[in-house]
């Protein structure tokens, strides 16, 4: 049987747009016509007719509703504004607190968005992987030169690959010379990575061996406004490169950073590219629809299959390009910070929302009369709930506007802090815009729902009779306060522990001296005249020591096979090594555990080795290492000394075994000059002029070792700074809320206080009366916050191999700080309430 009643959903839909009083009339009319229509043209057509009527009518009805409610809306707006103006303090706490919370959210959202967008712009991004090499649990991004060609030959799943080896080299065009960040890549590079070409095109960019691609910024630096194509740049005073293309500057959301790109054979030599030596990272692009895990399994043992001499296994792995910014190979995954900051943003917003809800419910009694009057005048509960939710939504939108203003003012400071170039652009960034609108609406509705339900449930009669209403939501308010206290305490504890660990890193004794040491990168020309230069420099005043080495103590990473007594070149161990000049240990103030440092008095020292304690532990020499046999990729020599362990790499890692030897002919070499702290500028000028004198074509450039060291922990420091700023903000917002709550409480109890005073209560009794409740809540929050913060922070601390233990004082201090801050706020309000004349208060009744 065909249904003869009108479509229920359409009826329901229409009812949403009708006011209560016109409901019967309009629906009834429509129903009647529907019946006529059924008689006339059958139920099915009538059905469609009904739907048609409803759909046509809705726009008109909406217009009418808006018009009808406009009058009411004006009234609501008026009462909202009056409420804001009448209670300026509360309104300030409410709006400002929420705005600060939202501003904080906006900034963190921008940051998170930026971090997640890293290297998303490469068209083939899904198929791009970085080659990783794992050994003894350490994973490296460097890979052997011969690996990529071998992989490409053996596995058809791999489409192409490129090296991305680093070098900072002197480049020259006419008289214009400066150091540029060079990356050595294979011609496949632009088939893999997507860049915008300003001149030239990706196909012909690397058609000849000496072709070079430079960024826009470099083009401007070398050639100014002249056409860069076809120009010749000289590299390291030896090789000529022809510019074939100019590409956009490195996007800020890419981990691939470079100034110029060229083929590695130009700098490394063809021969080195066929060896299994490692100099830098490499990337692969798989063919479409290839299963990565299968490829991973296949290539895992590529190196071990070729080199079977050692028990030391090297495992080849693949890391997806888009993971690189989020997952570190060793140490803390940066994605952890994304979680941490998202949690902070959430915590701050939560605290601000809790303030909002607490203050709104607490203040609800003040509005009891307004509600009662509205009810008497015929307002339904639904209308009142709508009014109050509308009010909070309006307040959150005001807060949001304020937050946008605040965040755009804070953005430059934040960019500086996070060392990013974020911009707040609401039109382009639609994710942020929708996110913000949703957050605002949600915050408004959520923080409005509870107070509005409480307020609208008041009975008008009892309100008018008593003029005093028991405020609702007492228990909820307590729960929220505890959450707020907990979040605040957890943030304070975490901030303290993080800054403590950072301070530990900065001040810890690394086992070597990094102050007043100037690092000068060298080139071939300087290397040849190094001995003359060293003599000249040492004769200058203010220069204490001069040495040179393949790597500074901070960045020892190259490895070589080594063996010792009882082992042979077929049974070797891989160790980090440094090639150096005399005076290395003296310049860096490193202490010897056994034996001596290299010295000119012993002619055969160029055949000898110094190792560190960690390396000694691997050998079987125990307490008597001096004079024992040791070998690294050449003839066997002996150990002349053992240097005490020092923290070269980041404190995230364990100290690795290191071998030191006298040898100065590696392509990369740095000079280290220890200077006295007096007349630093003059000394540096002296160094420059001496170098200019001895090696005229050399371009002098230097860094301070201390700065290099700080750079190593830049991420941590940056994180600590951001963390400190945001948790300070959270603490301030939370305090604001507390002040609001306490003053409200005190205000509500003025009558009680007045009566107690008349009966003879002292100030201290009154103080304890008000503070008891809050202090209990604060103590309870401590109980929750301590284990929570300990758990969270322990995870972070565990990512450091060396760390400052978490002390109990941090917890006690944070807990006490919050309790004391609560007490101070309460005392102020309580004393204010207690010193008021009882007569004045009671008279008002």
């Amino acid at each position, binding site marked *: 049987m065909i249904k003869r009643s009108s479509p229920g959903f359409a009826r329901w839909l229409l009812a949403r747009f009708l006011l209560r009083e016109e409901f019967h009339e309009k629906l009834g*009319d429509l129903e009647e016509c529907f019946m006529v229509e059924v008689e006339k043209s059958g139920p099915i057509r009538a059905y469609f007719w009904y739907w048609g009527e409803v759909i046509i009518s809705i726009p008109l009805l909406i217009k009418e509703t808006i018009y009808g409610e406009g009058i009411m809306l004006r009234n609501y707006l008026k009462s909202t504004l009056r409420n804001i103006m009448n209670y300026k303090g509360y309104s300030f706490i409410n709006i400002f607190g929420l705005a600060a919370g939202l501003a904080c959210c906006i900034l963190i959202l921008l940051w998170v968005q930026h971090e997640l967008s890293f290297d998303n712009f490469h068209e083939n991004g899904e198929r791009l992987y970085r080659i990783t090499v794992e050994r003894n649990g350490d994973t490296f991004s460097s890979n052997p030169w011969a690996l990529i060609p071998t992989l490409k030959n053996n596995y058809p799943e791999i489409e192409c690959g490129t090296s991305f080896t680093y070098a900072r080299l002197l480049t020259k065009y006419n008289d214009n010379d400066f150091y540029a960040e060079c990356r050595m890549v294979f011609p496949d590079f632009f088939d893999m990575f997507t860049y915008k070409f300003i001149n030239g095109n990706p196909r012909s960019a690397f058609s000849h061996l000496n072709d070079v691609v430079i960024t826009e910024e470099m083009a401007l630096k070398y050639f100014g406004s002249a056409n860069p194509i076809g120009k010749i740049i000289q590299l390291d005073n030896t090789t000529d490169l022809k510019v074939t293309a100019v590409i956009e500057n490195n996007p800020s959301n890419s981990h691939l950073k470079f100034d110029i790109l060229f083929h590695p054979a130009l700098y490394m030599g063809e021969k080195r590219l066929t060896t299994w030596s490692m100099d830098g990272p490499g990337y692969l692009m798989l063919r479409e629809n290839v299963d990565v895990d299968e490829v991973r399994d296949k290539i895992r043992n590529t190196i071990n299959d070729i080199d079977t001499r050692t028990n030391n296994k090297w495992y080849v792995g693949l890391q997806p390009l888009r993971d690189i910014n989020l997952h570190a190979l060793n140490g803390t995954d940066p994605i952890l910070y994304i979680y941490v900051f998202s949690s902070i943003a959430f915590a701050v917003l939560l605290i601000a929302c809790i303030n909002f809800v607490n203050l709104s419910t607490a203040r609800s009694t003040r509005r009891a009369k307004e509600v009662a009057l509205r009810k008497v005048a015929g307002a339904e509960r639904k209308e009142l709930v709508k009014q109050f939710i509308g009010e909070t939504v309006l307040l959150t939108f005001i807060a949001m506007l304020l937050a946008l203003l605040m965040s755009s003012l804070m953005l430059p400071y934040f960019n500086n802090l996070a060392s990013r170039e974020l911009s707040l652009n609401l039109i382009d960034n639609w994710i942020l815009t929708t996110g913000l609108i949703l957050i605002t609406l949600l915050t408004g509705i959520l923080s409005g729902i509870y107070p509005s339900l409480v307020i609208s449930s008041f009975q008008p009669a009892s309100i008018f009779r008593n003029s005093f209403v028991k405020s609702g939501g007492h228990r909820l308010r307590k729960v929220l306060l505890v959450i707020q206290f907990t979040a605040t305490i957890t943030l304070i504890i975490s901030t303290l522990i993080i800054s403590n660990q950072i301070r530990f890193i900065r001040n810890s004794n690394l086992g070597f001296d990094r102050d007043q040491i100037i690092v000068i990168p060298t080139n071939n020309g300087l290397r040849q005249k190094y001995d003359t230069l060293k003599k000249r420099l040492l004769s200058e005043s203010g220069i204490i020591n001069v040495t040179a080495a393949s790597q500074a103590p901070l960045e020892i990473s190259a490895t070589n096979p080594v063996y010792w007594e009882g082992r042979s070149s077929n049974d070797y161990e891989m160790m980090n090594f440094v090639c150096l000049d005399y005076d290395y240990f003296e310049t860096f103030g490193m202490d010897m555990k056994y034996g001596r440092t290299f010295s000119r008095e012993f002619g055969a020292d160029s055949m000898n080795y110094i190792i560190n304690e960690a390396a000694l532990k691997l050998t079987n020499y125990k307490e008597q290492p001096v004079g024992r046999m040791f070998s690294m990729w050449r003839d066997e020599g002996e150990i002349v000394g053992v240097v005490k362990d020092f923290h070269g790499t980041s404190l995230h890692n364990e100290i690795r075994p290191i071998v030191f030897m006298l040898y100065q002919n590696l392509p990369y070499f740095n000079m280290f000059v220890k200077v006295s702290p007096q007349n630093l500028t003059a000394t540096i000028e002296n160094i420059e002029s001496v170098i200019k004198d001895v090696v005229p074509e050399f371009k002098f450039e230097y860094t301070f070792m201390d700065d290099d060291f700080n750079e190593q922990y830049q991420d941590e420091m940056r994180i600590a700074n951001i963390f400190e700023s945001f948790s300070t903000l959270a603490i301030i917002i939370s305090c604001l809320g507390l002040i609001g709550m306490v003053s409200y409480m005190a205000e509500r109890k003025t009558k009680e206080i007045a009566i107690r005073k008349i009966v003879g209560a002292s100030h201290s009794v009154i103080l304890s009366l008000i503070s008891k409740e809050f202090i209990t809540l604060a103590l309870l929050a401590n109980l929750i916050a301590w284990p929570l913060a300990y758990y969270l922070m322990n995870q972070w601390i565990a990512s450091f191999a060396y760390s400052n233990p978490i002390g109990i004082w941090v917890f006690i201090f944070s807990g006490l700080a919050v309790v004391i801050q609560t007490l101070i706020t309460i005392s102020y309000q309580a004393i204010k309430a207690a010193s008021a004349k009882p007569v004045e208060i009671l008279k008002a009744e």
Partner: protein
Amino acid sequence: MKLLSRAEEIVLTAILLLKGTAYGVSIREHIFEVTGKKWSFALIYDPLNKLTKKGFITKSESEPTPERGGRRKVYYEITDPGKTALMEIKTMHEGVWEKITNSILETK
């Protein structure tokens, strides 16, 4: 003086002619007979609300009837000010149209 809108004018004349039997459905039917146009439902309530607010018509509710799904009818009745307003608009119309004949309006 504020004139009635065309929609208000049509609805008001319908109520006048229906003499006490004017409610949503009958007004709509009447309009269809007179103008040959089918008005959507919401379209007649807008002028009805405005006329009520201006005091040109009054509402009265009937008892619920079964053919309307148990809902009440609302009857509309014209008031004296309503009649005056109609009168005014009629005289004005006649003034406006007086000299306009069909032959002037013819298109080529």
